[in-house]
Structures are given as C-alpha cells and as structure tokens.
C-alpha cells in the first residue's frame, strides 16, 4: 500500500512537466542567479564601472589614469566625459556606477582648499562612492606612493614645522627614488608594496574552509529550503485531488488506511526533497567551491530534517484545505512569510533584533542556520543536534495533525 502510493506519486511527478520544472529546474536556476550575484557583491569580483574626467592633464594625473586603467577592481567607461555635466549625466543615467573628476594636481597640498579629486555618485547606489574612494586610495598607495608620501610631508610641515633645506632635499630624493622603484616594478609587471602606508589597518580573515563567499554558502540553504517548501507543498496537494475525486475513499474502503496513505506520500516527498536539495548542493560544490563533500554527513542529516519538516507542512495544508485553490493561496502566503522571516530572502543578520528573535519561530531559520553552521563555520553533527531534532519534532507533529485532519474529513 505504502509502495503503491509512492509509485503513484513518482509517476505523477514524472508526467507533470510543470511540477518537474518547479521541483528540479527552478531551484538550481534561482540558486545560480543568487550565487552569481552574491559571489560578486560579497567578494573581490565586484567591478564598479567608472568614468574619469581629467581637468588637469599633468604628469601626475596621467600616472593616475594609467594606474586606474590597470586596476583590476574597476572598469573604465569607454565614453570619455568632457565636462562635469557629462559625468553627472552618466551617473544619473546609470551608465556608470560613479564618476571621478580630477580637479587639481594631487601632488601639491597647499595650492587649493578643495580636495583635488571629486567622486560623483547616485544616492540610489550609495555603496558605490565609498567603494570607489577606497579603491582610489588603494591605487594611490600602490601606484603613486611618492604622491601620498609627498602630501603627508607637506601636511606635516603645515601642522608642525618646516623642514630644513638639507632635510627637504633628502625627502625629495627619497620620493624620487620611490617613484623610480614603482616605475621599475611596473615595467617588470610587479606590484609595489607600500607596507608603511598600509600599516595602520590590516585585514585578517577567519577560517575559511570554502573557496565560495559566505553569502553563496548562505543562499544554498536559503534558496534550497524556500523551494523545498514550495514544491513539497505542491506535491502534497495531490491529496486534495485524490480526496475530491474519491480516490482516497476507494483506498480507505479496502485494506488501506489514512496512516498508510500519508506515509507513502510522506516518504515520496522526502525522497523528492533530498534529490532537490542535492541538486543545489551539487551546484554549490562544483561551481562555487562550497565544501559540501567535506561536510556530507551534516548536510545529509540537515536535509533529512528539512525535507521531513517541509513534507509534513505540505501534508497538513493538503489535509486541512478542501480545494487546491484555497490551499495554494494559503501556502503561497505561508511560504513567502516563513521565507522572509526565516532568512531565505534577506540574511537574518541584516534584520532588526526583534525580527531576528521572531525568526526562530520559522523552520526556515533553523534550516538555513544549520546549513550555514555546517558549511561555513564547520559545525559538526553534535552542534547541529538541537536544530535537527527540532525539525524532526515539527515533522512528527505535522504528520499527526495531517492524519487527524484527513481522518476527520473522510469520516464526514
């Protein structure tokens, strides 16, 4: 009986192209799109498109333009702006993410009150301005360190005391020597290490076992569970059709029972869900370098907990609602709210604290955090025991509720 129900579900799915696409094509596609977006925004591949207007045309600004063109962190626009208005228009029309206007020669500090370089950006892409600023400073440090040191000395002199002539000559010689060293390195295609300038701030990255970015790892679980809910609830809705056309009546009139019917459906949904999640984690492993293979046991147990939970939620909805239309409206509402609260759409750490607390009521949060803990933080099975147990408890409760509800509707 259980096998018969399983077989019906399998054949039904294989012959329903829309359901097949929903289960096995759409989730990987969405994940690939999310991963493509976040692997860029969260990592070093974010290349902002910029345009530069050089109003000075000095030897230093030429060096700067050359350095910007070489920088791997940004793309220079093919269109060359002639005026500041051109830059403004290009930013307004989103042809570039930010514009750089070189207003004065950056070599000298004292000549002008305003900063020699102006960055033009659109508030709609507010993140662009600080990123471009940071990268511009980095370009100065790497390719024009003599300019940075020279400005620092001028600044020192204006705030403290003037250097003596021999001291000034020594500094000028040193700056010239740094400039030559940079040029020589450039000719040899090597990067100049301006250790002294960078010493103020140093970066340290924890772990990391994955080549992928944290966001790509995060969204594997987030997208996976959201689509798991969608497709398993859809799959469970076969129960509504079967009840409406009396197939369930026929089944329970023989040796069948509500328990056996639901068990057959539950097992198939879990089977379908595991395959669905496996596809996403396969992509995560082989296209984005998420270390799924190294954590396969943890991933398997979390996936079992997640699919059991999603399957029983699907069965409860299918057992409770009388028509597919009612169930679809409710399930869309339910899945979207759960996914939003649980962190499938926006990572939980970006939520306000009250929403983060509330999100623990959504199974999505437990699933996503578990995958994240295993794949990013390297958590083991014992660390995940609580969340997996909770998912299984929800599954058992859901299954019992579905059984009671279906029994009640058949009796009446």
């Amino acid at each position, binding site marked *: *009986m259980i*096998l*018969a129900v399983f*077989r*019906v579900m399998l*054949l*039904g799915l294989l*012959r*329903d192209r829309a359901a097949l696409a929903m289960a096995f094509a759409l989730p990987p596609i969405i994940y690939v799109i999310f991963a493509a977006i976040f692997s860029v925004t969260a990592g070093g591949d974010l290349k902002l498109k910029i345009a530069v207007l050089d109003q000075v045309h000095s030897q230093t600004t030429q060096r700067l333009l050359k350095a910007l063109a070489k920088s791997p962190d940004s793309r220079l626009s093919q269109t060359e702006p002639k005026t500041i208005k051109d830059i403004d228009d290009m930013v307004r029309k989103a042809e570039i993410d930010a514009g750089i206007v070189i207003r004065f020669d950056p070599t000298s500090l004292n000549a002008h009150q305003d900063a020699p370089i102006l960055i033009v950006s659109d508030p709609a892409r507010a993140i662009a301005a600080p990123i471009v600023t940071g990268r511009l400073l980095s370009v100065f440090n790497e390719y024009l360190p003599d300019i940075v040191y020279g400005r620092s000395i001028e600044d020192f002199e204006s705030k403290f005391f003037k250097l003596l002539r021999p001291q000034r000559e020594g500094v000028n010689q040193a700056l010239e020597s740094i400039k030559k060293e940079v040029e020589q390195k450039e000719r040899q295609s090597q990067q100049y290490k301006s250790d002294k300038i960078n010493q103020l701030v140093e970066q340290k990255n924890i772990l990391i076992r994955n080549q992928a970015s944290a966001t790509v790892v995060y969204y594997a679980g987030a997208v996976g569970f959201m689509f798991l809910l969608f497709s398993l609830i859809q799959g469970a809705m076969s129960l509504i059709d079967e009840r*409406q*056309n*009396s*197939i369930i*009546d*026929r*089944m*329970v*009139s*023989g*040796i*069948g029972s509500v328990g056996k019917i639901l068990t057959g459906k539950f097992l198939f949904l879990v089977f379908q869900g595991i395959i669905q999640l496996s596809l996403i984690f396969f992509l995560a492993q082989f296209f984005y370098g998420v270390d799924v293979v190294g954590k396969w046991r943890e991933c398997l147990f979390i996936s079992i907990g997640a699919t059991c939970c999603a399957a029983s939620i699907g069965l409860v909805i299918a057992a409770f609602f009388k028509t597919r239309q009612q169930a679809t409206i409710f399930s869309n509402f339910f899945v979207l709210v759960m996914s939003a609260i649980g962190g499938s759409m926006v990572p939980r750490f970006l939520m306000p604290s009250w929403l983060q607390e509330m999100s623990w009521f959504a199974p999505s949060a437990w699933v996503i955090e578990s995958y994240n803990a295993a794949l990013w933080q390297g958590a083991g099975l014992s660390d995940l025991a609580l969340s997996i147990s909770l998912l299984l408890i929800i599954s058992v409760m859901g299954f019992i509720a579905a059984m009671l509800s279906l029994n009640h509707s*058949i*009796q*009446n």
Partner: protein
Amino acid sequence: MNDIKSAEILKNSQTVRAANHTGSAAQEKTVRLDIKGAYFSFGSHAVLRGVDLKLRAGEIFGLLGPNGAGKTTLMKAMCGRIKLDKGQIRVAGKDPRLDQHARRMVSYVPQDIAIFPYLTVIENLEIFGQISGLSRHHIAQSVQLMLQKASLENQAHKLCRTLSGGYQRRINICASILNNPIALILDEPTVGIDINAREEIHSLLHDLRDRGAAILIATHDLDQAQQLADRVGFMKNGKIWLEGEPKTLIQNYFGDEREIIMSFSSPPPDPGIELLKDVGFQPIQAPLVWIGRLENGHIDIQSLTDLLARSGMLVKEISIRSPDLTSLFMKMMSESVI
C-alpha cells in the same frame, strides 16, 4: 389510507425478500453482507435509523432514495469505514471494521471517477491491485483478465485522462473488482455516460453477479435500477422502508392500475390546476406535465379532454402506461409514513 397501504406493501415485500434474480422465491442464497439495526448519527443528526438489509450471493440490489436519505453513510458503514452507534454489519460473518480480511472482501466504487489521471490504464489497475493487497503474481493475472473482460486491451497503455468518460467508468469499476470481492458496492456507476458504455458496464456487472458476487448499486436512475436490479430498496430519512423485487413491488403496490400522463402546450391557469387536482392528477414536471391513475384501467379520454378544454387548457399529448419504479419511487417519497 396511504399509511395502511405502505405498511401492507412492506409486509408483502418480506415474503419476496429472499428471491434471487431468477425469480425463484424459494431459493435461498448465501448472505454475503448482513446489516442489522444499523444506527448512526453525526452529532445530533440521525443519519441511519435502524437499517436492516441482507445482500446475497449472485444478486444485484438497487438502493434508491433521495439525496440525504443516508445511502452514502450506509455504504461507508458496509465498507467498515464508520463505527455504528448501534447495530451490526457482517461480511461473511465478520465485522469489516475489525477484520481486515472482511474489509478486503468488500469493494467500493465511488460515484466520481476515482482513478489516477496521469497513470495509464494498466498502471491504474496494477496500483489498485497492490492497494487491495494482491500479490504481484495475482495482480498481473487479474489485470490481464480485467482488460479482456472490460474490452480495455487496446487502451491499456494510454493515460486515463485521455480516455472517454465511458472507458474511465469501466476502469473505475475494474479497479474495484481485481481482487474478486464477494460484495461490491457502487455509487451511481453509470452517471454521465452514453447508452453503449452503460450497456457494457451492465454486462460487466451481470458477469460479476453470475460469478456469485453480491452487488449493491446506489442510483437515482430508476430505469437503470429496474433494468439491472434483482431487488430494490427505497431509503428515506435513514431507513429502508420498502424492499423487494421491482416487478413484485410494483404489482403489490399498483395492482392493475395504469398511469395517464398529460402534457400541456402552456401552463394551465389556476382554475385548471384545481380541476386537475380534483380529478386526481399531480404534476411530475410542473406545470406542463401531469400524472394521474386509472384504478380500473379505463378512462373516457374524450370527456376528460372536453372538461379540460372548457377550463381553457389545451392538451398537447396524452399517454397511458403501466406504473414502473419511477411511479413507485414518487409515490413512496410522498407517503407520509416515510
């Protein structure tokens, strides 16, 4: 008057209760399904109020009654799906609620086409064979046999949703008889299909009956019941009030009476309606078609039509016929005893 007559008929019908389809009242057959004093309520609403019924091997029983009479609940009880408040149901002597073997011996064919639309005919039959507990070997045999008997061999590998309503109805029945049940319960088995498909289903049921199954058909199609059933039972308000062979019941109830049916071109005026009621007519398709009874089988048609014409009513058509199950059903449903 009517109450007395109904009670008389009820009493008379007891004498023919054991008659089989050959008409031999003396021939007792094995009781396959036995219902005694069945009571069941949904909350305070009594649905079954003391149903007694025996289904015997090799007979087709027509369960007739209006919507809400309790037919579906009775059928559910026969399949062991609900627990009676009082009374008992036995399938081959065992309670189908408690005995899985007894439950397997009763098959149910729902009114809806309860098959899987995305599966082929053969897959559907295999699945329902599995569900009814047949072994793999028996499933293969039974499926082939069913495909032959129901002339479904050419459709075997087609998806059910692509087949006509008639084929789907046949599969609907075949799916329930794969395991050779001793009792088969069908809810409106031929609703919505053409005459040819209906005849094929009748033939399938006759074949099953001839092999010794007890068959109960709940139907609103009284012509079908008259044509197919060896016995019928009229159910209303949770009780079977009248039970027996259709011919015997009609004879016992109507004797030599004939029915006269009159159709009018336009609705009769109020005085005409009063006149029709005075001479014993009642509407069957109000307000254009009326039915009356001829106690001694004679009527002066000319005088009747003249009388009606004087009241401004023009008769379009008059027919005289022997009463049938429809006549009996209408009569029974209007009886105050029920």
